[in-house]
């Protein structure tokens, strides 16, 4: 049965569950399912930080999400409130807050919790990956 499966990631990028979320998404796509959106909340918001640089012999989940999302049209949505508490900012907010730089990783968008509520309503499954 083909399903719409949305993901909620609240694990930080360096936690095991963040890596498991990525593998789950790959398997869901390989299984013929649609993954319309991954919502990054809580410590998961750090996924959207373009300056993450894990050790070279370890996983780089942000980079992997960018590739996967680009190939399959998945929306990578970072909650704005969670992001600001954790130092992730897009260009618009940086300008408004008079910060000289922004650091949202390409491929990610910043938005509100309504994007989570939407997939609660529309997706057939919501699978969550806490830290």
């Amino acid at each position, binding site marked *: 049965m083909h399903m719409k499966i949305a993901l909620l990631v609240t694990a930080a990028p360096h936690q095991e*569950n963040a890596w*498991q979320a990525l*593998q789950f998404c790959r*398997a869901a796509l390989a299984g013929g*399912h649609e993954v319309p959106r991954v919502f990054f909340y809580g410590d998961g918001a750090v996924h959207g930080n373009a300056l993450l640089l894990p050790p070279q012999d370890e996983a780089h989940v942000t980079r992997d999400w960018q590739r996967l999302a680009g190939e399959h049209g998945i929306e990578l949505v970072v909650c704005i409130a969670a992001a600001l508490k954790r130092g992730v900012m897009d260009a618009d907010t940086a300008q408004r807050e008079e910060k000289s730089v922004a650091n949202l990783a390409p491929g990610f968008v910043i938005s509100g919790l309504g994007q989570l509520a939407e997939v609660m309503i529309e997706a057939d*499954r*919501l*699978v*969550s990956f*806490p830290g």
Partner: protein
Amino acid sequence: MTTTLHIVHKLERGRLPGALRRSFASDDSLLLTGDAVYAALSDRRELPGHCHALGDAVRARGLLPQWPPEIPLIDHGGFVELCVRYDKSLSWG
């Protein structure tokens, strides 16, 4: 009434979380991931009949030699199938 896949990735002092045990209904299923895979060694008798574990988490931790054969190891494809088969999942954060 809906069925639930309980996904657990942390234990409490080597045991399944008490709240998980209390909330687990007879039609539900359990998936051990992350640090919860140790429950197959430390809390084996408390595990329900419907129980799987994520193979990569088990192999990473060196648990394969002692792994109890009654708990099937699955890959992420199997994880997705479980999520589809049960009405919903509950991740124990």
